[in-house]
């Protein structure tokens, strides 16, 4: 992909849309803009219905706030994985390939552990019959956390791809793009954690 771009650059076939920024990164920012609107639509619905029907949210809040340990650990995991991802991008730009690959692996591992712990949490919810139909709160809990979980999975897979391809190729540009996405997924959790577990 990038090879063709570099070769065509001289023929003016490939032109960066934004001076000094490669198109992939610009495209990722635009995609993340649409993601912001996607999540804020759901969070806006949550906010409106929670203010309108507070009684439907009391039980759910008490349940989740009462057992906050796992979610707090998951929050720490995502923040840590954001750090390793940022360091992986930096290592990639400095051409420190083995360091970059190690950090990518650590990021993917923490993302996977997040998903495993989320499944454990889902298991206890199912055990107690706290399914989406239980009440309005759990309808939002499942929707928001499941969509976020799919985003985590959709991040772990390309990060593993980067880890694999970094062995033979320079993937610093791709690494920066996926890094932006990964930080965004962390950012969504920064809002979901207080909205669902704390308040």
């Amino acid at each position, binding site marked *: 992909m990038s090879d063709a771009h570099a070769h065509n650059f001289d023929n003016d076939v490939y032109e960066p849309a934004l*001076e000094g920024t490669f198109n992939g990164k610009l495209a990722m920012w635009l995609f993340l803009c649409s993601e912001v609107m996607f999540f*804020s639509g759901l969070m806006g619905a949550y906010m409106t219905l929670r203010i309108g029907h507070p009684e439907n949210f009391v039980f759910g809040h008490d349940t989740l706030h009462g057992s906050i340990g796992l979610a707090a650990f998951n929050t720490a995991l995502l923040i840590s994985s954001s750090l390793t991802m*940022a360091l992986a991008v930096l290592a990639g730009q400095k051409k420190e390939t083995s360091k970059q690959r190690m950090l990518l692996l650590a990021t993917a591992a923490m993302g996977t552990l997040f998903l495993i712990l989320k499944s454990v949490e889902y298991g206890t919810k199912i055990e107690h019959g706290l399914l989406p139909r239980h009440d309005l709160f759990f309808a939002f809990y499942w929707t928001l956390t499941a969509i976020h979980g799919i985003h985590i999975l959709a991040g772990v897979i390309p990060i593993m791809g980067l880890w694999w391809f970094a062995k033979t190729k320079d993937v610093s540009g791709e690494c920066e793009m996926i890094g932006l996405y990964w930080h965004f997924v962390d*950012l969504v959790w920064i809002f979901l954690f207080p909205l669902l577990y*704390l*308040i």
Partner: protein
Amino acid sequence: MSDSHDGHAAEHVEHPPVPYFAIFGTLCVFTLITIGASFVELGKAGNVVLALAIAAFKASLVMLFFMHLKYEKRPIVLIALAPFILVAVLIMALFPDILNGQYHSDDHEFKEAPAAEPHEAK
């Protein structure tokens, strides 16, 4: 590949080293603060406002430093900020519904209408 990537790698050397570990530490500290604060009774609105203010602060740290917005060129910054203006519009558009009580719990018609008398009331 190497040509274009060298180009953008060189461009990134320009900005000063990003304090990744300090930002990570700050994010961890504020996570602990927000968890701790959720167990302190600050009034109904107080807890919500504090939790969301801390979340917004943490989110801006992630965007500025981890996502490098602090060091990006202006067009990227403007693109990144655009959806937040739209989010503000979205939330303001929701306010009338929240304030005039259309979805309020006292409005039993809203809650019971689908089950009891689907369309006859209208």
